[in-house]
Structures are given as C-alpha cells and as structure tokens.
C-alpha cells in the first residue's frame, strides 16, 4: 500500500494525517497560509517527505490518495470576498434574494443591517420566460433578451453568473438554453444553474443556494485546479479528493463546480472520524460530538451510526438548502470573552479574542478575560505544559484581568469569578447540546459524548455530568481528527428531484424514471474507481430517500425509500410512509397514521466505498498509571466545592489499558483532558480515551 494523506486546513494550523500501513499512522502540522492555502499544503507535504526520508516528488509518486479539507469556500462566505456575481432570473422575480421570505434575524433590533450583498441588484437581471407549475412552457424564452442580459453582465465585469428560473426543477430547458448563450457570448464566465445546484421547489431556497455557489465558484475552482495541477506536475498520479459538507468526498471537477457543497469541508472530517472510527465499535453507535476551538463550539449528533444531516441551513445569513451534516455552532470557544453587561449580568461570548491576540494569558496583547484564562486560574491548564510546553501561559495576567473586569464589578473574589465564567460557558454549551438532541427528539443520556478540538476535552467531563451522559470518548488525535476522518470518507454523489405525490396517490413509473435520470447524472459525475476504492466493492451503491410531510406541514423529514434492484415498488412506498410516521413520532411526539403522507422530493445518495483503514489494536498493559504521573497540583472541582490536590498525567507516557480515576488531568500534546471526580478514564486498545461517568 502506498501513502494516504489527509489534509485539513484550519484557521491556525493545517493538519496532516498520513500512513503507509494501518498501524503506522502519523500526525503532522504546519501553520496555515491564509492568503493561499496551497502554500501550507505543499510545505507540509515537503516536510512529510523529509521526515520519511524522501524527496517531495518521490513521496508523491508513492502516494495513492490525498483527501483535502479546505476552507476556501467557507472563508469566502465569512469574509465576503467572492466573485463579482450576477443573476439571470424570470421576469418579475428579481428580488427573492433580498425578500428572504420575510425572514429577519433580529426582530427587536431595527438597526440590525441587511446581509452583505453577494449579487447587487444592478447585476440581477430578468428575462421574459416562464415555466408553469406543470412544467410546461407558459412563456417562451426570449433569447435576444437573454443575450442582452449576458452582454450587460459581461460589460459590468461580472465574473460568475447564476441562472435561476421559476419551476426550472420541473423543466430545465430554459436554464440550459441560457447556459448555452452564456457559453457563446461570454465563454469565460463561471456558470451555476439552479436546476443543477438544487433541483428543488421553493425559489428562494434555490436562488440563495445558487448565488452562494456562484459567489464562491471562481475562487474554489481556481484554487483546486491550481493545487491539483501542481501536485500532478510534482509527480502525483493517483486520486485527489475534496471533503464535502455532507460527509463524502468528491473529485476536483465536481467540488470546484459546486463550491456550496464544501462550506463545512473542515468540520465534516471530524464527524466522519467519529462515525467511522469510534462508532465502528457497536457500543458507540449513538454519539454527540463536540468540537471546541478558539472561537466556536460545534455540536453534532450521530444516531445509529448515521450522522444527522439537515437541509435547513443558513451560512453567513444566506440560506443553503442542500443537505449538510447538521452542525450546530455557538460562539463559545477558549477565546470567548467574558464581560459584565450594563445590567450587571455576566456574559461569555460571542465576541472572541480568537488566537490573535488570544486570551490574556497568551501574553500577546489580549486584555479581556476569556474562557481559557478562567480555565488556567481554575487549574485545568498548566502555565508550563500548555501545548506540550510550546507556549508559556501568564497566570498572574489572567488573574488580574478576571479580577478587574469580572470579579470586582460582581463583588466576588477571583476564583468565584473564574468559576462563574466556567459555569456560564458550560451552560451555553449544554444548551447547545440540548438544541441538537432534546429539541430534535433525542435523549442525550442515550448517547456517548465525543470531544475534540483544543478545548473540547477540558469541558467534556462537566458537560457529560450536566446532561447525564454516561461515557465520553476523547481521541488522542485531538485536533487532527478531521484530517483522519477524511481518510475514512467514501465518494458520495447526492442528487435530488422534486416529486409531488402522496402515499395514496403516486405514480411508480414517474418515480422510477426520476431515479433513472438521477442515476444517469451520477454516472457522469462519479469518478472512476481508483486504487483506494474498496477492492471488494467496485459497484456504486445507490441509496434512495424521500422527503415527506403531513398535509399542511411544510418542514419535511427525509426517510429511506427501499427499492428492489433499483426499482421502487408499492411495498417500498408503504415502508417509507411507515418510516415517516415513526420519525414524526420521535421528532414531534405524535404521528397521524390515519392520514396520507405527502411526498416532496426524491433523493439519491450514490456511494463508492473507499477501502477502510482498520483501527489500531494496541496490546493492553496493566492498569496502573503511576509511570505516567507527571505531578500533582491544585485544581478546582465544583463537585467537591473547591480546589483539591489532583494528579496530572503525561499523555505521552500513558499506555493502552491504564486506568486513571478522577479527579485527574491528562495532558496531551494538543489538549488537556479534565477527568472529574466520579469519572474514570481508560486508554483503549484502539488508542482513544474512554471516560465513564458514574454520576
């Protein structure tokens, strides 16, 4: 087996996970290069080559697979520095992107401004044409108008054009024709067609998703093409894939054409890792993952080994209606700033000191107390061993700042104030976990908590206690978990079609012909089987789904639709309806089994499985952790009402099988794991920590 390399570009570091055999996995990181992410990627690859004793070309020749998680599209939408974008749409519907179906984020704040425009009104042009609700041509496309519109956009310097016409998901002919005209008169333009990006009813959702695609299109496409051709020139001959927001991977052509599919490219890797690696153990098929970094806290839920996926997404205030892993983000990170507001209440976040200047204790000019400063005061972090001793933390600066800006205004002592910050941020995070679990009909007590990111394992113990979760898993890969997950991801192509019918009135021929058409599209998109595709399964697996709802409900639930050798049958429809009733009951407390189920969209998820990399199987040593004990220090645990002398273990010296009873702290290279009183940690044969909570 050749090398396989997973590369995850984060805000501060670019993480690499690479291996040439299952039990020889290595982790590596270099600083990210924000201006051009590929610089960091190439420099990291060079260093890996060095470490392995090869030249870069040699290494790449020996590499079977590279999977890349990139934040190019993500950052474009966060920083609003995308392409000059235009829209061509149906006469009379120029403003859907601004109307937003009336939605506003802040109902009490009239001073809250409009979203940053991604396509100015002057570049949103309409043409005479109309498809009606039956998919028939109501008004023929005025081709000369379309031509004029394209010329106008070209003259305005528009680089990327979205085309979104009413009812194009039923009949895409006019959109296709406009694409033809663009290719004729402005061949350099980037084109996004709504019936390709999101062939689904509801014009606002479609136009918003399509415009985000247009806006991010040139940047991601150019970036990926450049990186791939550079790798090719250096001698890389095999498969290069990009991690997408739905948890699958795809080739550069596809990922570059649909950048809106990779907005969650980074965090998706972590969730796949949790699903495939940790969830591979049948004891852990229900997981809640938490990823706490410097500025945010991401929560997601995995039930029966299936990560929750949602189409109900907003990103940077734009509606993205494609299925993405359901990641709930709140502004609680290590850098979140604690402050006392005008009314005298303590707040934590959402403002963050990020990594620059960072928390006060970093000594880089931060003056406002953060969660990390509170964690340092409470003893969860050690000034001398933070990040493996790479950075010394300034405890007294942290204390002074907490004292001045939190303790004094609230009339508390410094410790109480630091503990207050800790409690508030924990409460915010616990509520975030409640949102993705309880509010969606899941009881967190039936789940295992998987903590990653630099700060996740510091808070996981107390969160598990608050939510009465029995087990916590912390991977030793910590921050590199996303990169590892990318190497476990399969090639996935998602397709959809709107189909309006009910469980009583449906047309199997129509349904099956829609699936056949989707499969045809998959054939065109699906990359050829390469070396890393699972040898035993060369075939593409087609999974059918249907979005369904009761009459009048306009939020759909996606349920599997069974087929026999590709064909949907009456039996399949009945089973899908029953699956819908059951999901409705779980999610919303009731089902109306006497009512027909309304169908809205058909979905096809086509998977080409990649070869799996087995988990490590370490030999178990005896359980005594004494040899890993680094020191003892006073650490604050609210469960025992204050500071208590606590053993601190050196993660590097912990062997599989060691049992570490709480309270204790395990110092790993990239994170500290806080094991609370009444919790017990153990390093498993698969090389992750399993913490059981008896409270």
């Amino acid at each position, binding site marked *: 087996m050749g090398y396989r390399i997973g590369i995850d570009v984060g805000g501060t570091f670019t993480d690499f996970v690479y291996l040439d055999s299952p039990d020889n996995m290595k982790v590596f990181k270099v600083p990210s290069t924000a201006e051009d992410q590929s610089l960091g990627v190439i420099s990291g690859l060079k260093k890996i080559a060095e470490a392995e004793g090869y030249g870069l070309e040699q290494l790449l020749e020996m590499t079977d697979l590279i999977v890349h998680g990139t934040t190019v599209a993500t950052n474009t939408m966060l920083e609003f520095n995308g392409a000059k974008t235009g829209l061509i749409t149906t*006469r*009379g*519907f*120029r*403003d859907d992107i*601004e*109307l*937003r*179906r*009336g*939605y*506003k984020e*802040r*109902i*009490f*704040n*009239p*001073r*809250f*401004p*409009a979203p940053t425009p991604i396509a*100015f*009104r*002057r570049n949103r042009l309409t043409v005479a044409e109309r498809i*009606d*609700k039956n998919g028939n041509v*109501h008004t023929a496309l005025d081709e000369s108008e379309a031509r004029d519109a394209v010329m106008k956009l070209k003259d305005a310097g528009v680089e990327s054009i979205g085309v979104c016409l*009413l009812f194009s998901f039923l009949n895409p002919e006019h959109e296709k024709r406009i694409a033809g005209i663009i290719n004729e008169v402005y061949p350099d333009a980037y084109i996004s067609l709504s019936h390709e990006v999101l062939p689904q*009813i*509801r*014009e606002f*959702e479609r136009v918003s998703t399509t415009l985000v695609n247009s806006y991010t299109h040139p940047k991601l496409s150019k970036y990926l093409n450049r990186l791939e051709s550079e790798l090719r020139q250096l001698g890389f001959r095999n498969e290069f894939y990009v991690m997408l927001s739905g948890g699958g991977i795809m080739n550069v052509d596809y990922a570059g054409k649909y950048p809106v599919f990779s907005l969650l490219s980074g965090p998706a890797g972590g969730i796949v890792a949790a699903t495939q690696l940790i969830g591979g153990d049948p004891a852990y098929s229900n997981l809640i993952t938490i990823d706490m970094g410097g500025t945010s806290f991401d929560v997601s839920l995995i039930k029966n080994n299936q990560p929750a996926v949602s189409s109900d997404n907003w990103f940077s205030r734009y509606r993205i209606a494609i299925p993405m892993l359901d990641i709930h983000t709140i502004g609680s990170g290590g850098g979140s700033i604690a402050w006392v507001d005008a*009314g*005298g*209440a*303590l*707040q934590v976040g959402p403002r963050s000191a990020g990594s620059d200047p960072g928390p006060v204790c970093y000594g880089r000019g931060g003056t406002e107390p953060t969660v990390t400063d509170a964690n340092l005061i409470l003893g969860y972090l050690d000034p001398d061993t933070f990040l493996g001793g790479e950075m010394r933390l300034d405890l007294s600066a942290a204390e002074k700042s907490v004292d001045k800006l939190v303790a004094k205004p*609230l009339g508390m002592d410094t410790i109480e104030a630091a*503990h*207050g910050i800790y*409690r*508030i941020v924990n*409460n*915010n995070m616990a*509520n975030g976990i*409640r*949102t993705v679990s*309880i*509010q969606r009909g899941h009881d967190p007590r039936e789940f295992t908590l998987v903590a990653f990111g630099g700060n996740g394992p510091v808070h996981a113990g107390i969160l598990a206690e608050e939510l009465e979760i029995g087990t916590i898993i912390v991977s030793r890969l910590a921050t590199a978990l996303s990169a590892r997950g990318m190497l476990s991801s399969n090639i996935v192509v998602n397709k959809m079609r709107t189909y*309006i019918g009910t469980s009583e009135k449906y047309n199997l021929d129509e349904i099956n012909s829609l699936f056949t058409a989707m499969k045809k599209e998959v054939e065109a998109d699906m990359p050829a089987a390469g070396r890393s595709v699972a040898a035993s399964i060369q075939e593409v697996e087609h999974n059918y789904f249907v979005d369904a709802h009761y*009459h*009048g*409900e*306009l*939020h759909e639930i996606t349920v599997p639709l069974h087929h026999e050798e590709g064909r949907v049958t009456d039996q399949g429809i009945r089973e899908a309806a029953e699956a819908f009733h059951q999901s409705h009951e779980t*999610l*919303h*407390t*009731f089902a*109306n089994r006497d009512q027909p189920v309304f169908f809205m969209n058909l979905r096809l998820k086509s998977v080409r499985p990649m070869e799996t990399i087995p988990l490590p199987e370490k030999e178990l040593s005896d359980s005594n952790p004494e040899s890993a004990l680094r020191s003892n220090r006073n650490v604050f645990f609210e469960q025992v009402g204050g500071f208590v002398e606590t053993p601190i273990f050196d993660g590097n010296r912990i062997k599989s099988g060691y049992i570490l009873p709480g309270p204790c702290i395990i110092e790993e290279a990239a994170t500290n794991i806080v094991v609370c009183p009444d919790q017990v940690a153990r390093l498993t044969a698969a090389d992750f920590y399993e913490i059981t909570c008896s409270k």
Partner: protein
Amino acid sequence: MTKTDPITTEVIRCRLFTIANEMSETMIRTATTSTFSESHDFSTAIFDSEGRMISLADGLPMHMGASKFSVLEVLKDFKGKIYPGDIIVLNDPYHGGSHIPDWTMMTPVFFNEELVFFPVIRAHQGDTGGTIPGGYNPDASDIWQEGLRLPAIKIYERGEPREDIIKMLSINTREPRFKGDLKAMIGSVNVGKRRLGDLLNKFGMQTVRDSMDQILDYSERCFRAEIREWPDGVYKGEGYLEHDCKGTTDITVRVTATVAGDTLKLDFSGSDPQTPGFVNSPVPNSYSFIFLTLSSMIEDSIPRNEGLLRPVEIILPPGTVVNPLPPAPVTACTLHIGGEIGEAVAMALEKCVPEKTYLQNVKMGMPVVTFGFQPDTGEFYLDQNTNMSAGWCNAAYGTDGWGSLPPYFGSMIMATAELHDMYYPVHTIEREFYPDSGGAGKWRGGAATIVRQQAKAQMWGNTFLIGTKYPMRGLAGGKDGPLNSTVMREGSDNELIVETTGFEIPFEDEDVLMVRFGGGGGWGNPLERDPKLVLEDVLDEYVSLESARRDYGVVIDKTAMTVDDAATGDLRKFMKSK
C-alpha cells in the same frame, strides 16, 4: 432570604430561554396549517404563578404584552381550582385575549404541590367560526359576529381530555386541520412543562424563584438606565388610521409621553372614541404594541420580560379605541389600531430621542384572503396569500430599511410563489420591488413590491385596505413611504380599484389581482444622505434619477453614471435654503 448568586441566575435565565424556544420549535415542526409551520404566526413564553412574563421566545413580539392578561384571567377564573395536568385555553378579547383568532393556551407547572409556572403559547387560528372564513369580518358590528368566544376553559383537567369541549371547539371552526394544530399547541405547552419540571428538580424552588425576581429586576434596571438618558419632558404624538370599514374615518390615537428621571408615562387620553368597526384594541393588545415600540429602542441583549414594563405607567381611557367597552368588535386590532398605537408612541418619542425611535407598524389593513374550491378535488380552501406582503419597513438611524417587512414580522416566513402556485389554483405573475418605493431619508426606507397573481379557477376575495391616505411616516425629517393600492380583476372590463374594503369579490379564471404596497419611511433629512449612496441606489434601481434629484438633491450624470458634485452641492444648498 438568601440571594441566589448572579451566575446561577444567568444559568437559569438561559435555560428558561432555551425552554421557551423549544416550545416554539415544537409548534413549528408539528403544526399542520402553514400559518404556523411556515409563517410562524404564534409566540411562546414562560410566566410565573403571579402572571409575570419571565421569558419570551423569539416569536411574534406583538403577542408579548397580551399574554400576561390571559394568565391573570386564568388565575382569577380558576382560583383554587388549577390542577396538575390541566390545559386551559382562552381567546375572548374581553376576558384576557386580544382578538378572537389568537388562542392562548397554558398548562400549570407544580413543584411540591405549589404552582410555579405557566408555559404559554398564543397562536393565530386559521378559522374560529363567525360570519366570514378566516375570522376577519369587516362587517361585524359586535364581538359575537367575530367568531366563537372562549373565556378561560379547560380542555384537559387533571391530565384527562375533556372530549366534549374539544368536540365543541372543533365543530365551531371551518379549518379542517384544526385538531392537528390543537395537538401541536398541546405538545408545545407540555414540552415546556416537562423541561420546567426538570429545572425545578435541579435547582429547587427557592433558587428558581429568587432567580426569576432577579431576572425581572435586571431588565427593569436596564430599561430605567435607558430612560434616565432621555431628556425629561412632555412629548405628544398621534397615529392615524383611514377608516374602520364601518364609515368612521381618520381615527386618531393620541398619546402624551412624559419622561421624568427613570420613568415614562404614556397617557392615551384624547384618543378617539371606540368605533363601530372592528379596529378597536382591547387593553392586552394595546400593551403589546406599546411594549413592542419600547422594545425596539433598547439593546436587543436585554431580556424581554415583565421587568421592562415596570418603569412605564400606561393610561388607557375606557371607551376609546385603545380600550373599548364590550361588545365592540376588535378582530383587526392586532394590526390596526395596534400599529397606530405604536405609531403614536414613536411619533411622541421621536421628539425626545429621534436616534433611538423606530416605527414598527405595517400599513397592511388585511391581506387579500381568497377562497374557493380546489378544481381537482372540490375541497374548500382558504388562502391567506402570505406570499404577498412586502413593504412598510422604515429606515432606522444608521440603517436603510431592508428585506420584506419591519423586523417585528421577521419570524413570519412567507410562502414561495412555486409552492403557492402548486397548492392553490393561481399563477403568480410577478413579485418585485418597484422604484422609489422606499421613503427618502438620510437613511432610506425599505423598498416595497408589486405583486400580480392570476386566478386559475373561480374564487372569491376579501380585503380591508388602509394606507391609502396615511403611509408609513418618515422620522426626523425623513420622507413618508408611498401609499398602498389594490386592484381586483385588473385590466378586465370588471376592474375594481379597492377603496376601503372588498368583500366576497368574485374572480373568474384568468382574472388578475394586483397588490402594490407602500415602502418604509426614511430617517433624517434626505439632503444629508451621502451622494455616493444615492448613486448606488440609482444604479440598483431602488431610486430613480428623478427622485435622486427631487428628493435627495443629487445630480447624476446620465451617461457616465457618476455624481455631479458641483451641481449636487448647488442644488442641495438651494433646497436647504427653501
């Protein structure tokens, strides 16, 4: 009494807010009519056993002052007879409700046999009987003609459904999916009950009660601090409504606002007497709009709860449009005269703190409601046309008006043309902003749309139109938005330009309905708007070249499409001198 520490209080406050939002989420995901699932025409909140609002979810703010009166009514009517497992509902405007279509439901939460909380949902029903489908009866001359009146009644007692009562309710509505929505409301308050029980178990009664006191004190303290910044004085304001559908015209709400130290007095004496038409606003509804207007003036991080009302003294003279005596009809009040109550308050406070003041009104009247029979199944349908409303979003200090509607409507989600066309026998022809639809100002009012839709089968339409004389008003020197216009059967021999109301107006196949709303008013003198922004607006066709010159004093070179600085300077100087 030991005071609960501020950290625990904050933890409990966030938890309560999460619970109120979870109640909303339950309703959104389970309601079976799109009024709730798609348009979110409801709100959820948590009250304590004294009827104090502790936490309000991000729902419809215009419900927020009113629900308090519902809880007080329940406490009064069922004194000593509230049991665990009860579910109580009411809607009567003269018995704790605001208007007949809004049903308020609650369930008591006990801890150690002591009443602690009421999780409450208030939701707009698709139909509640009465003369006209949908509940808005412009012809009503008393409350009985507006629909089924419910004082506080139990639909569940001690956990047992009262099937007779539920049946009575369900045969008094035309809405075939009524029971589904009722189930969803019950689910919502029950979710609240469960979570509040967990909260009490975790923290104990005393800590929770202490925290609630502190949460309310906190909001009160914040609002008092705000008012203290306002210049003391007496300020007057008026809000105007064209008509009440029964011949009364130019109905005026008058308020005298007195700012003194950290208190605010709002005296509505001098407001017009109650009218024969359905625009009268019962006290709970009047509170909602006062509360809404004041809430828009403060930081949105300050929790919206009972505490905000404490520094405010409100005088609503009986027998006027802001406090009618029974049996005056009231259904339209949640838009009008509610909106005009807010308008009067804003116009008064504009003279005191113009930068803070915002006018959260919609000059809507009532959307055109159409009804008929589905051509394929013959099933009766009622279409609220929630895809049609875009307009009236005023500018605020520092921000142009934007989006579809004023912020307080921001949780109501409009239908899309595609689904609307799919579900009803209509063809949406257009829905687009028209030029100069936002009032000029240093910050421009939000643009408004023209909507045209064509009937694809026979149907009938009802409407109640206002905003034909009194548009959205500009503030601090900003200009008003344009007026509304509704035309039925546009372009046909039978064209009908609606003046005040349209009632069961028939549409034949292919007839067109045209609705053009007015945009928002501007904020501040348009001659002070940055000419570059005016040029941007012209390029984007929000503002015409003529309006740039006429209203903003900005001269734009038509060929180069650049601002002529010299000519603009001269023109502005001249306009300012006038």
